């Protein structure tokens, strides 16, 4: 495989990873966060800036970055998740702005808008991202079918009903938000290792919105849908990146195309492309059953 292809696969892995994290939050618990890119920024910046400044290996600072994201997510979640959902969306917007401002503020360490480039080359990044992606997908899938996931779905559909059934809505929400933020932070570290340069602009609110668009396109209730749409929508623009329109590469029109697509999906198929469907292998068993039954009934009708 060429370097470009490997890079693209890693990129797709990172995108899918973040969308899977958002699936846990928006798809399962119905929380709408616009600040997930900020956690990616924290992951990326804290890991590599600390590792450079203090001269310690980046896997140690990486762990610290993820712990820091967890702490910040908890700090934000505690006051806001008791309130209406709007407040939560607000605070995540404000948070992502604040992270951007802080990166510029510590310009001496992060090199501000120019971008931080002193990121070591890592071998085997492809396998690391593929492996962790599979792990996360498996994890979130299990989460969806566990007691925890069912409680989250109950909470999404009707918070008050869920509460009256004895579900601790508040702490459940905090847990899910912290989980999603930790995954986002990890994805941010991977992204920094892939691009080898990080700028505050690359973690803007546009990126957070893009993730939400991917999720809603595939369907908020379907993990398969989220994965497929994230991978698909991320890859398709790569095929047209050499085509120009109005003197601008077609890739620049990516967000516009996404916006149009998602408008259509939200208007005419609000449940997303895949709706509630999940990919599983139960249908194989059903098919076998049906074939068996058919042969049995066939014999009976002959008699």
């Amino acid at each position: 495989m060429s370097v470009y292809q490997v890079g693209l696969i890693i990129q797709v892995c990172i995108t899918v990873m973040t969308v899977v994290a958002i699936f846990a939050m928006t798809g399962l618990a119905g929380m709408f966060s616009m600040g997930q890119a900020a956690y990616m920024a924290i992951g990326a910046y804290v890991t590599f800036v600390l590792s450079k400044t203090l001269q310690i290996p980046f896997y140690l600072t990486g762990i610290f970055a993820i712990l820091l994201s967890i702490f910040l997510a908890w700090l934000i979640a505690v006051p806001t998740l008791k309130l209406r959902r709007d407040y939560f969306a607000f605070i995540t917007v404000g948070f992502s702005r604040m992270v951007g401002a802080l990166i510029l503020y510590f310009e001496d360490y992060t090199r501000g808008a120019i971008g931080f480039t002193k990121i070591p080359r890592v071998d085997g990044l492809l396998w690391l991202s593929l492996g962790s992606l599979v792990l996360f997908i498996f994890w979130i899938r299990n989460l969806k079918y566990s007691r925890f996931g069912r409680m989250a779905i109950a909470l999404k559909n009707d918070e008050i009903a869920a509460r009256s059934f004895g579900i601790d809505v508040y702490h459940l929400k905090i847990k899910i938000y912290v989980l999603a933020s930790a995954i986002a932070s990890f994805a941010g570290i991977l992204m920094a290792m892939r691009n080898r340069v990080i700028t505050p602009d690359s973690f803007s609110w546009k990126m957070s919105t893009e993730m939400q668009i991917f999720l809603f396109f595939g369907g908020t209730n379907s993990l398969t849908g989220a994965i497929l749409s994230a991978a698909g929508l991320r890859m398709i623009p790569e095929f047209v990146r050499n085509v120009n329109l109005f003197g601008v590469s077609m890739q620049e029109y990516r967000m516009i195309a996404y916006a149009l697509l998602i408008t259509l999906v939200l208007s005419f198929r609000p449940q997303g492309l895949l709706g509630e469907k999940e990919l599983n292998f139960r249908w194989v068993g059903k098919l076998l059953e049906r074939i068996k039954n058919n042969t049995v009934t066939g014999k009976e009708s002959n008699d």
Partner: protein
Amino acid sequence: MVFQLTINGISNGAIYALVAVGFALVFNILRFSNFAYGSMSSACAFIGFFFQRAFDPPPPFIVTLLFASFSGMVIALLIDFLGYRRIRINNSPKIYYFLMSLNFSIFIEQILTIFYGTNIYSYPSIFKIQSLQVGSLYIKTMNLLILGVSVLLLVALILLINKTKIGLAIRAVAIDAETSRLMGINSNMIIITIFTIAGILSGVAGVFLGVQYGVYPGVGPSVMLKGFLASIIGGLGSLRGAIFAALALGIFEIFLTFFIGATETTVVLFGIMLAFLFIRPQGIAGKLVENKV
């Protein structure tokens, strides 16, 4: 110096108030935060800028304002027609409104970026006399105009809501959309009225933003956050609270920027927002804190 800063702060605050009130109105009726508002203002800033430049000699500023507010209205109604209307018909969850408004926001901003780049265009000077001197103070004519127009618009809006029949209907729908429909209020019409007003406000705010900060695709969204902040501090959905909070925020921000710097101000403002949510989530005026049954 203090007085000078206060005046600048008030005129910034007046722009925030326009944005915050636009939010609060839409929030009151549809119970969602219209994130597309910032980009609408950006679009109106561009429209106003090119309208002003299209004629020689340039049209009076007030004509530009009117044209921009008309365009703002058209954009707002278009967004409602293309996006929110279907969500209302489908009766989808609130989260869809969030995504749809973000989606339009990104759509507008991206189109502006592709066609005009991220360069900052600045409005040509509008007044012959740039600033008035009162004693040792210099007051920019533009700041006075911004303040005057905003106060006029906000007072007119409050009168409209408190004194007229349409205002009564708006208040009724804000309290309970379902019941007011049973009482014979055409709630669709009210929603269209709300988007018209919000669009006009965003148009005016857009032109003022362009004049104050220069015209670039991100100008609206960057002020949008201040609008959010004001509407949180003022209490979500409360118009008067939002206006007062916006003015206070404008003044506070100018002082902070002057004394500690612009980057730090963003961090401090976010801290205030978080503190408010801790201590008094309902804001100054507020109600509507937790999800109702």
